[in-house]
């Protein structure tokens, strides 16, 4: 690893100003789970590292009935996994977190870092997108809020500008009678990175018809992707086995997996089909029971 200047700002404004000054050669550092590996392998050689861990405004998890769940960017995976608030309001997040990487990574790595990394083989983005999550972003010139779905551009590429930092993830309250399911599929060991990850959310309208449907496919393309055609198959109808099957088969055509160590393109598409069907069925059941 090459040496670098190391700074520890205590406010978001200060951090953004330092980033701007760095002109692309400064990097935000929080949990450091991915960053230290990239630096050790020489893939990233920043002149300046801006550790934002001393910024207390970026910590903590809050819930407001109207706005929903607000998760600070510095919240670690393990904090999310074990948060009482989250367990009560959005237990799916705790369940998903149990399977993310390993306990050491979950103890260090932050939610903000995970989302900002653009890492394709991960779990949380799919789930947050299925929940219509938004992210709050600060920069040296102000603040903006965007749908998480719009953050991702390509492998490890996001629409964040050089001086921008994700400060918060906001998960709006789900409509009544909603159900959500996430299925992480590993093609070998349980500790392997996911081969495919599928999140499905269904909110019911009248007569047990699916009113809002989100199907988000992860690990099967440069970015997590919403299977909108598959969503359309289900919207407005009560879910049955045939419909779930159809949605699965449509979804498998809506992603762009590549063949790699974790499976061939063809296999990943087949798995997407199976997982979408299963996730929809469970989300629907969950919604029907709530």
């Amino acid at each position, binding site marked *: 690893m090459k*040496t670098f200047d190391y700074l520890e700002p205590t406010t978001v404004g200060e951090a953004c100003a330092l980033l701007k000054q760095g002109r692309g050669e400064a990097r935000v550092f929080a949990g450091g789970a991915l960053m*230290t590996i990239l630096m050790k392998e020489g893939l990233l050689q920043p002149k300046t590292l801006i550790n934002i861990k001393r910024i207390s405004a970026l910590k903590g998890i809050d819930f407001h009935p109207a706005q929903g769940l607000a998760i600070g960017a510095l919240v670690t995976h393990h904090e999310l996994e074990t948060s009482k608030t989250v367990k009560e309001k959005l237990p799916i997040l705790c369940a998903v977190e149990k399977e993310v990487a390993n306990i*050491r990574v979950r103890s260090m790595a932050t939610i903000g870092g995970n989302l900002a990394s653009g890492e394709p083989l991960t779990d949380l983005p799919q789930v947050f997108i299925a929940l219509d999550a938004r992210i709050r972003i600060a920069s040296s010139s102000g603040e903006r809020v965007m749908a998480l779905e719009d953050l991702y551009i390509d492998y490890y590429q996001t629409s964040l500008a050089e001086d921008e930092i994700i400060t918060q993830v906001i998960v709006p309250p789900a409509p009544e009678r909603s159900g959500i399911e996430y299925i992480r599929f590993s093609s070998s060991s349980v500790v392997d990175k996911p081969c495919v990850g599928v999140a499905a959310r269904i909110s019911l309208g009248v007569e047990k018809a699916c009113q809002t449907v989100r199907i988000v496919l992860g690990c099967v393309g440069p970015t997590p992707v919403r299977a909108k055609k598959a969503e359309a198959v289900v919207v407005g109808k009560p879910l049955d086995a045939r419909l779930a099957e159809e949605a699965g088969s449509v979804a498998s055509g809506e992603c762009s997996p590549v063949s790699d160590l974790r499976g061939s393109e063809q296999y990943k598409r087949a798995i997407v089909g199976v997982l979408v069907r299963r996730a929809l069925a469970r989300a629907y059941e969950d919604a029907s029971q709530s």
Partner: protein
Amino acid sequence: MKKGIRFRVNGVDTALEVESHLTLLQVVRERLSLTGAKFGCGIQVCGTCTLLLNGKPVSACSVLAVDADGSDVLTVEGLAKDGQLHPLQEAFMEVGALQCGYCTPGFLLTAKALLDENPHPSEEEIRSYLAGNFCRCGCYQEIVRAIQKVAGE
């Protein structure tokens, strides 16, 4: 760039001047001669370099030493207190939860973090919490048994 850091290591206040790019594993092993944490994979997968940082398990190979400024660090050398082995150390020996021993410091510290967080974990919780530590000799069943033994006491 060099930076002064202060942290507590196994209960001892420690002040050091370190290069910004050094990892906590390098500093603990080379500067403090605490070699219980081992290098294994260098990418946070295997768990042989596990240390507890403010009570939480981390891969010391991927933590910047400067980032540990102000923290409390526990290494396997700090598990025993006043000449008394930690109950996990006793249980690992009694049940036979190790062979070559290279992964053992990492497993012990991870198990400690688990029990501190959840004193009576189910077998499923133990398996899940420790799934990220490799034991190539394959003492997994004994490791679970050793932790259950301590949790049951």
